[in-house]
């Protein structure tokens, strides 16, 4: 296939193959970093899972552990950001988007449980917080919701999808809190989920992943309401809230 003797100039397909090979190489490089991130993510997830079986008093151990584990992931993200920023963002965004969503979710959950509090650690950790997209970006050390520059960042969609995962996890946590004898947290969760739900309701969502996933929020609202109802019916809700 040295020179053109027929319909096709061989250089055309040589060029195509070159472009495809380069593209594959970039994907492989990114996937290699993501493998590390995924592995680290499993450790963080394992720590955060303990929140379901840990009472509020000793929850700070879980949160501190998670914060520590997340630090490794954040290091990997800076590596990813550097590699990814060499290429058009949306060309390869799908390669890492899912993992960045998972990581964002873990940061949001830690934040809800009292992690990443800016105040002194000696003070009581404030729980029930929703970290904003900017706060998550600061923690990750990457820009957020960029519009005018083609560089690695946390996108709005990724943040919102992570928030939905958080809601699903909190619905589970509400029931498990009751099992642990904590009757306050379900109220906190109920209010939080309702606020987030109200937020999602003002979005004009189109038929895409965000729409499909956000459709489930209302069921989570109801699940937690049921928990609160069960508690109030039995006069188990603490009086001072």
């Amino acid at each position, binding site marked *: 296939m040295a020179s053109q003797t027929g319909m096709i100039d061989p250089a055309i397909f040589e060029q*195509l193959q070159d472009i495809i090979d380069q593209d594959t190489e970039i994907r492989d490089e990114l996937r290699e970093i993501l493998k590390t991130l995924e592995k680290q993510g499993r450790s963080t997830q394992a720590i955060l899972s303990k929140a379901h079986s840990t009472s509020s008093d000793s929850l700070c151990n879980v949160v501190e552990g998670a914060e520590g584990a997340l630090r490794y992931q954040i290091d990997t993200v800076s590596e990813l950001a550097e590699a990814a920023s060499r290429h058009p963002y949306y060309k390869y965004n799908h390669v890492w988007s899912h993992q960045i969503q998972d990581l964002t979710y873990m940061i949001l959950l830690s934040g809800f449980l009292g992690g990443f509090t800016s105040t002194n650690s000696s003070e009581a950790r404030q729980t029930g917080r929703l970290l904003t997209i900017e706060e998550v970006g600061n923690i990750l050390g990457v820009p957020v919701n960029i519009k005018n520059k083609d560089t690695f960042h946390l996108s709005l969609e990724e943040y919102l999808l992570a928030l939905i995962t958080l809601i699903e996890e909190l619905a589970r946590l509400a029931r498990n809190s009751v099992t642990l004898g904590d009757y306050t947290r379900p109220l906190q969760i109920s209010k939080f989920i309702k606020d987030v739900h109200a937020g999602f309701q003002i979005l004009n969502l189109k038929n895409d992943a965000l729409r499909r996933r956000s459709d489930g929020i209302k069921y989570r609202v109801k699940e937690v309401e049921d928990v609160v109802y069960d508690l109030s019916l039995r006069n188990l809700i603490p009086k001072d809230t």
Partner: protein
Amino acid sequence: MTDISKSSSASLFLPMFEGFRAELDEHHDRRERVIKASRDITAASKKIIFSLQRIKKLNEPIPNFVTKANAQHWDNIAKQYKTISPDLQDLNTHRYERNITGGNQELMESLSFQHYLSTQTLISYDDACAKVSELSEKGKPVQLSIEDYVLGIFDMVGELMRFAITAMATGGELPGGSSTSTENRKVADEDTMEVDSEEKRSLPPRNALSDMRELRTYLEYLEVPRGTYFGKDVDKKMEVMRTCVEKVENALYGLVVRGSERPKGWIPEFTGSSRGPEPVEAV
């Protein structure tokens, strides 16, 4: 948590979400514009291909009646690309790739088919990109991805099949095949082809089928990444492409084996096999 009063709590996250809403609306508007343009580009490209199929001869300038008929469709395509050019720049260059690919592929099909009919060669990726830039707003070219190009070429094989079979049915032979095309190329590529000129002289004349086979070989040889949208699309189109080549081979077989027995204009593929050979038209 305790100091947040119930009345203000309902709107706790609302200001944040209001900002999100504005941004998502912008994104959705862009996406919808791109999807709509993609559909219109697809429709116009199909019409162009339809007109091109009325051409009978290979390697000659596109006849006037086709150029005239297609001018409005090309204008329409340019209009669509210009509409979405600003939406597909900078950060958003690749953001709506999955939304524009349908139109880009269909355009690629019409572009490569037209190029083939007039030159009997395959349009290069760079030339195709240049053509799309030309159709886009000045200084804001819409990106034709490598995927759009390759998948469009796959579809073009289907058009080559229709073109070849129609020509065989109406003209009794495969289009192309004259030695002129080879001669023309020799002149054009004199500088680069000198070494091979000896070899080339002994080559059999090219025709639509040999071109399809050549294209098939190259497409089969191309190594695409597994497990991507692109890889899956190529797998699907590969089968269709092979069938297209085989259909022309079968038609040629019919033409050769029964050719001398039947009058011009009889179509082996399309008349029922139960009926005997009957002339469709007397030439």
